[in-house]
């Protein structure tokens, strides 16, 4: 069953068609990767799904309901969480607080209730803190819960971003180049982590440059080039697709 269904999605910047008539599906419980050379429109596609950019046309269905053109906070509330290509942590907050913000959509105390610190609010606050600590343990960052998020090394910042994204218990997790800046050892750890998240029942859509990572863990791959989808399928098929090889290695193999 398709958890996410994108049909004929378009978005232009001036005369540039960054995403042009792209359609694909992400099935529940799978890892799907979107690959393509720099400038292929991958991040634009992500931002369209996550609501950070408004599409020009097409449709986006999540769980059968349209999330087309919704603002990011509504997309998040619908059950889609994300990480960013350049890690975007809240540098002014501790690791624990960062993860706790991830719990925003799963808690309900508003401005007034927070201001009055009602018993219900305090109870919720304890639950949020416990959940954040649990996630920190899962990602091996429980020892830095009270450290400022900006003070961590790169690898741990990534871990915090993962924990924050999972705190909302999303159905779909969008990962924007999670291996960027990681060494081989860290990338292997990341691969295990992503598979583990999928095994928790969370569907994953990822953008990635690291081919070996993508080929190892993806159930399906879609390939973008100049804003258009040029191939889609399981890794073994995509790997041998002449158009994909042409796009990545150059040459005119695609012509015939």
């Amino acid at each position, binding site marked *: 069953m398709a958890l996410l269904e994108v049909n004929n999605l378009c978005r232009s910047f001036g005369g540039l068609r960054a995403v042009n008539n792209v359609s694909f599906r992400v099935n529940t419980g799978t890892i799907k990767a979107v690959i393509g050379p720099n400038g292929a429109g991958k991040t634009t596609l992500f931002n369209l799904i*996550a*609501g*950070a950019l408004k599409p020009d046309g097409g449709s986006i269905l999540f769980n059968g309901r349209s999330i087309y053109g919704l*603002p*990011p*906070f509504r997309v*998040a*509330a619908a059950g889609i*969480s*994300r990480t*960013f290509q350049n890690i*975007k*942590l*809240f*540098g*002014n*907050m501790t690791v624990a*607080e960062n993860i*706790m*913000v*991830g719990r*925003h*959509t799963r*808690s309900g*105390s*508003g*401005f007034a209730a*927070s*201001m*009055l*610190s009602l018993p219900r*609010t305090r109870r*919720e*606050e304890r639950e*949020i803190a416990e959940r954040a600590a649990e996630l920190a343990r899962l990602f091996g960052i429980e020892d830095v819960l009270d450290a400022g998020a900006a003070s961590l090394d790169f690898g741990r910042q990534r871990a915090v971003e993962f924990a*924050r994204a999972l705190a*909302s218990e999303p159905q779909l997790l969008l990962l924007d180049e999670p291996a960027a800046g990681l060494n081989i050892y860290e990338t292997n750890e990341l691969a295990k982590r992503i598979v583990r998240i999928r095994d928790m029942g969370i569907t994953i859509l990822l953008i990635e440059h690291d081919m070996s990572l993508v080929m190892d863990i993806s159930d399906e791959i879609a390939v973008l080039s100049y804003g258009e989808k040029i191939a889609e399928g399981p890794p073994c098929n995509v790997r041998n697709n002449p158009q994909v090889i042409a796009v990545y290695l150059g040459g005119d193999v695609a012509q015939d």
Partner: protein
Amino acid sequence: MKRFVAIGALAAAVIALHLLFAAAGAEYLLVQLTMAAYYALVVIGLCLLMGYAGQISLGHAAFFALGGYTAAVLSTNSFTQLMGAPALERLVHWGLVTAGTDAYGAAAHQVPVWLSLPLAVAAAAAVALVIGIPVLKLKGHYLAMATLGFGTILYRIFLGTRLFGEADGISSVRPCALLPGLTIGGDTALRTQNYYFAWALVLLAMVLSLNIVSSRAGRALRSIHGSEEAAAAMGVNTARYKLYVFILSAVFAAVGGFFMTHFNGGIGPAEAGIMKSVRYVAIVAVGGMANLWGSLLIGVLLNFLSLRGIFGSYDDAVFGALLVFIMALAPDGILRREFLHRIMRVRIRWPFSK
């Protein structure tokens, strides 16, 4: 728990200062401490807005003035021209306006405080809402410029409108009887109760604000400061949270202005001026931005000194210089351990260093 200890300590300090001044025969100092408390309400709200949510406002004095002018207009001779008019008689009949006398014993009408205070709050909230929706879409310098413009507009309106007394402002504002035994006014006999009332308001504002910052809403505000994009991706309705905190800070300021005006017996356009707004921003910056206690402490201290006339004609210059000093040397405020260490080391080494 730490919160309650700190609030308790503040309450104890308020009482201790009163006893100290009383023992020293310097009870007149309570007047400036009362006024500093009302200014502190603006500082607390601005600290939430600027320090925690990261949204600068260079027009916050306008909200203080808005509360003050509402108090002044509704409790002075504004209704004189309407006297005898059926509309006014009906308002009197409904109890929305009460007939009384002005400061000189002539017949005058005024709006009772149970109505004028909510009106002042509503006016500030409404203006903050209308201004906030378009302006809070802006970021950084642009937000600073827009709020500066907004503050200037309100300042010119207060300065140029008959109803607001133009350049003279509004004087002979009546004291306001809040409760039996509690009257907000500048009379010497009322000094102690006014001091405690003003500080009770500060305590209340601190409790509410501290509750906010250590809760879900407070985390949402700080996440906006950290990364607005990431906050939205985590499900935070950033536009709404920014608007809420803007309105809340405007209401804090208006309440401060409202009671300050009754306490002082008047208000003038300078209260809405740009230099006042810069002063509030400087105080929050010196206090350490996302630091409610620091901002409160620095705010009360500096305003108290300023009201005592310590800075003389250089009053505004002192606050301007402070802002430059803070931005250059201690952007995280002066109440940080790192900064205090640096200062101490400099002081100890200096005479020997040559």
